[in-house]
């Protein structure tokens, strides 16, 4: 059976967008094509993480799990791992 794609949601609420979310949207430029091929990436509105405190924007949800402080480098690493699993 074909492996299901990794589901990725980048938070594009105001707080996340200005604190690095915009950089993540350039994923076509910095993600490796093989990784990209195995991911299904979409944008989403505020994940409500910025309101509960704790954790640093921008937030990203990968297969249902929330990650914080996701820079481009962190994003690459997280997705590589997720794809391998």
């Amino acid at each position, binding site marked *: 059976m074909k492996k299901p794609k990794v589901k990725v949601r980048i938070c*594009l609420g*105001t707080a996340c*967008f*200005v604190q690095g*979310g915009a950089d993540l949207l350039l994923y076509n430029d910095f993600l490796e094509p093989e990784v990209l091929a195995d991911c299904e990436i979409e944008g989403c*509105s505020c994940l409500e993480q910025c*309101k509960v*405190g704790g954790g640093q*924007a921008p937030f990203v949800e990968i297969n249902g799990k929330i990650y914080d402080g996701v820079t481009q480098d962190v994003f690459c690493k997280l997705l590589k791992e997720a794809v391998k699993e």
Partner: protein
Amino acid sequence: MNNIFIDVDYAQIYKHGQKIGGDVFLLSRNPENNQIVATLSDGLGSGVKANVLASLTAHMAHKLSFSPISLEHSAEIIMDTLPVCKERKISYSTFTIADIHYNDDMENIAVNLIEYDNPASLRFSGAEDIKWDRTRTELKREGAFKKETIAQSSFKMDIGERLVMFSDGVTQSGLGKSLPLGWRLDGVRKFIKEEISANPDISSRELSRAIVQKACALDGFSSKDDITCVVVYIRRPRRTLIVTGPPFTKEADEILGEKIRNFNGKKIVSGGTTAQIVARLFGKKLKVDLSCWSPDVPPASKMEGIDLVTEGMLTLSKVVTALEKKENIADMPNDPAKKFVEILLDSDQIHIIVGTKINEAHQDPNIPFEIGIRRTIIARLRKALEENYIKETSVEYL
């Protein structure tokens, strides 16, 4: 807000190589007197000399049409005042004056039209052209170098009607190039009919632009004269609703839903939380559209029934700045702020519903996302729309 709108706009292309036009268009809206005056004048020749003649004519015609003097008499005064060209020993410039009056409720729109030597104006009801009678008066001015005939007519304009005025740069376009006799009145009339048939709601801005561009194309994109076209269009106002910010109480959410549902016009929702509320109320899905964003403005989302769904503060401030600076839309990056501005500029009346719920504390205190700021930005938005673009705006808080 009125239910009838008089849409007046014009487009102009100068004679190829000229930086100043010999065609001059003036427009004044005088809401206190319920009057709009549109004047188009074409001065002899082209360039600076023609511009001076045409400006003088247009300004005099304009002033005089606000005075009790009859328009025919005004025309004589104008022609007696114009300076005489040294070489040709004549003073000459053409003009068309549309003096438009309306009642307080915008009903009963009456036009007094004076035409002197410009190509005859055209009228349309939908895509059908209207024929009407003009009274011609010969001026018999002393020292006139030719027969001077002024055509005067008065008529009412109804919803869906247009009055189109232009300079001879339009009717004579293509002369000796693509068309042996030029475009001529018949050609222009046919073109306008086709344009209106294809796009019945075409705005005065778009229609006047289409006409001058076509004329310029007939001239092989090197216009042989100034090309100017003015369109007056009586229509229902175009309305846009902007919803921004969640309502103060949960109960008010329903009211917001009702207001959006019942609104007749374009609908914009600005703000992530607001968008979620609206999506829930309407039972619709929100989908982020990653094809349209810029580093300053987060992507828009798509929702059935709403024309544009954007993020809140970043997008709004971009929109306001663009309107305040009168930025050229074509120069804006392809992001939701641009789409926002496009919709606003295409509307006559803009209603804004501001939700007054204070957002839960943001983790970053630097991000100003509270009602005070929202109020300020909405006030700036209204001011820019009203002062820079003569739009009607209204606001309500929920």
